[in-house]
């Protein structure tokens, strides 16, 4: 069996991952070589966002639980990494009230990013165990409440985060290559996780909690471990994001940004890596396009008032329309395949179930 064949015949989704990784790399080369400078920035931003969406999918797609706190962990990673990597003298200027001990902490960027991710994972490890025991509406409100607590801490603890004011002076470290590399690593990582024993157990618990626990899956345990892993990705992505954007404030890690990530995931398809990637691509293109329209309308004087929120209005309408007509997302729950292989899969019964709908099953049988 040739290497190529092995890649194509592997677990469902392996082809997708290889193809997406190749696509990302080719895209980065092309953008870097030919596109205008602005595009390089957009592409870098896209790769970091893709990483964040994949991290969200890691927990939400495989467990079926809406994770409100995710964006909070992105923030924890961003702040931790930035505090560590920024030069003490700059920090002293940027955050006048910072604890002296924190001001003097200084690490090179790469270890700082890793520590930031570890801090996010550690916070998740401390708080998540009881949260994972809850489900349904109570679980949702608890995760939401946790996000609020994290946000209040970020906006009020000005000895660490500069409070609601902007934290600036972070060095620009995330280049297009680093972002692309990180996105590819996350892509491979989430795929490996999905096919790992832990990933399979978690997906089983998503599809039928009781059947899974009857088979010996400890539902709380698999959720807990994945939540930590997902928070690690969030923290790392947050750090990379901060080292691209260089100045940010707590509002960057709140419901507004979570809405963007969630829209990407649901529009693409919450059950699969292809879905997360497709959604990230489509929504990024849509957002950039709408931003152009907004700034055109504002600058050209066609209309007399300033346009705000057009992007969000369109995205929200798209999200609602998707949930109504195609809740499994564009990709529809399963991974992309080659056209030929799709036919084969249709002819021969495949070991993989046809679709893994996250948002359609477990229907509220009460309210049909």
């Amino acid at each position, binding site marked *: 069996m040739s290497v190529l064949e092995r890649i194509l015949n592997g677990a469902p989704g392996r082809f997708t991952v290889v193809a997406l990784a190749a696509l990302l790399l080719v895209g980065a080369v092309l953008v870097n070589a030919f596109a205008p400078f602005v595009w390089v920035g957009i592409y870098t931003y896209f790769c970091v966002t893709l990483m964040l969406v994949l991290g969200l999918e890691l927990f939400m797609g495989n467990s*079926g*639980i*809406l994770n409100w706190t995710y964006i909070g962990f992105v923030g924890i990673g961003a702040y931790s990494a930035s505090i560590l990597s920024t030069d003490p003298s700059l920090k002293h200027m940027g955050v006048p009230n910072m604890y002296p001990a924190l001001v003097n902490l200084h690490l090179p960027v790469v270890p700082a990013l890793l520590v930031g991710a570890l801090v996010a994972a550690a916070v998740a490890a401390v708080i998540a165990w*009881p949260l*994972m*025991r*809850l*489900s*349904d*509406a*109570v*679980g*949702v*409100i*608890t995760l*939401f*409440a*946790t996000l*609020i*607590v994290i946000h*209040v*801490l970020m906006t*009020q603890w000005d000895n660490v985060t500069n409070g609601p004011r902007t934290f600036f002076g972070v060095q620009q470290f995330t280049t297009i290559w680093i972002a692309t590399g990180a996105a590819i690593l996350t892509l491979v990582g989430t795929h490996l996780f999905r096919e790992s024993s832990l990933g399979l157990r978690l997906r089983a618990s998503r599809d039928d*909690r009781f059947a899974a*626990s009857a088979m010996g899956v*400890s*539902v*709380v345990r698999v959720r807990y471990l994945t939540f930590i892993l997902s928070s690690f990705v969030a923290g790392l992505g947050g750090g990379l994001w901060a080292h691209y954007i260089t100045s940010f404030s707590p509002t960057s890690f709140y419901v507004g940004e979570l*809405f963007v990530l*969630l*829209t990407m995931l*649901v529009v693409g398809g919450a059950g699969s890596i292809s879905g997360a990637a497709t959604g990230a691509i489509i929504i990024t293109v849509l957002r950039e396009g709408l931003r152009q329209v907004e700034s055109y309308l504002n600058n050209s004087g066609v209309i007399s*008032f*300033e*346009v*705000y*929120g*057009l992007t*969000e*209005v369109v*995205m*929200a*309408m798209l*999200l*609602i329309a998707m*949930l*109504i007509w195609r*809740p499994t997302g564009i990709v529809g729950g399963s991974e992309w395949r080659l056209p030929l292989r799709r036919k084969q899969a249709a002819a021969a019964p495949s070991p993989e179930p046809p679709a893994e709908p*996250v*948002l*359609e*099953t*477990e*229907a*509220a*049988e*009460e*309210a*049909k």
Partner: protein
Amino acid sequence: MNEFIINTLSLGSLYALIALGLVFVYGILKLVNFAYGEYIMTAGYGLFLLGTYTPLPWWSVMLLSVALAALMSYLTELIAFRPVRTKSLTAMLVTSFAVSVLLQNAALLFISPRSRAVQLPAAFNQSVALLGVTTPLRNLLTIGTTVALLVGLTLLMKYTVLGIAMRAASDKFSTTRLMGVPANLVISVAFIISGLLAGVVSVFWVGRSASVDPLIGFTPLLIAFIATVIGGMRSLVGAVAGGYVYGLLFNVLSITLPASVINYRDAFMFLIVILFLLLRPEGLIRGSYTEERVG
């Protein structure tokens, strides 16, 4: 002391109404409606638009604004929630989040990102003396309106066919439908009552700041979460009790917390919420059986 009691009763009444509006929908559909705050915003903009651009008297402006919130609630049910009702809980939650973002940004886009002043009759803010305490008339009106609404809703739920059907539906929806109760009707009515309560809340909420902005619904939404969690997500009485307890807790924390940590008050509140959910997920007042924990 009397002042503290009146303030707490007034704040608690407002919070009770806020919580009640959220629980009406939750009880039947098991949907935590994130768009609930936007119904409050809708009524707020109703007050602003009708009060500023029409010559209508203030009382009809208020009635129309409350009706507008109910209409908005009904429309969101019809357009967004009804089609996803049969899908998963997560799908409904994401839908309500999307509706919330949509309405907020529609207000940003079509009205203004800046806050707008709302004209309310001057009598609303006049001080009156009661039991040796001077307090704005608004506070007493809040208490009075809440009591009247609670009595009215209790009568509706206890003695009308519709109310009995709604209580049955929140207990066991499928059985209720087998008894010949139309699902769409019950759910629509729940949304309309939820919207009406949001509208009434809006009159008093906007009355406090005399202005309305696109993000005005967020704080009431959080309040509704806290109050319903404390009181119990499953019962209407629980929501009201939760509202009053939260009002009390809020005032006590505001007085007792030292100035240096007062900014963390919201964090404290939500920590209490999380503890409540972990230790007593059924709230102060236990509703009927529901499965809320795994493992």
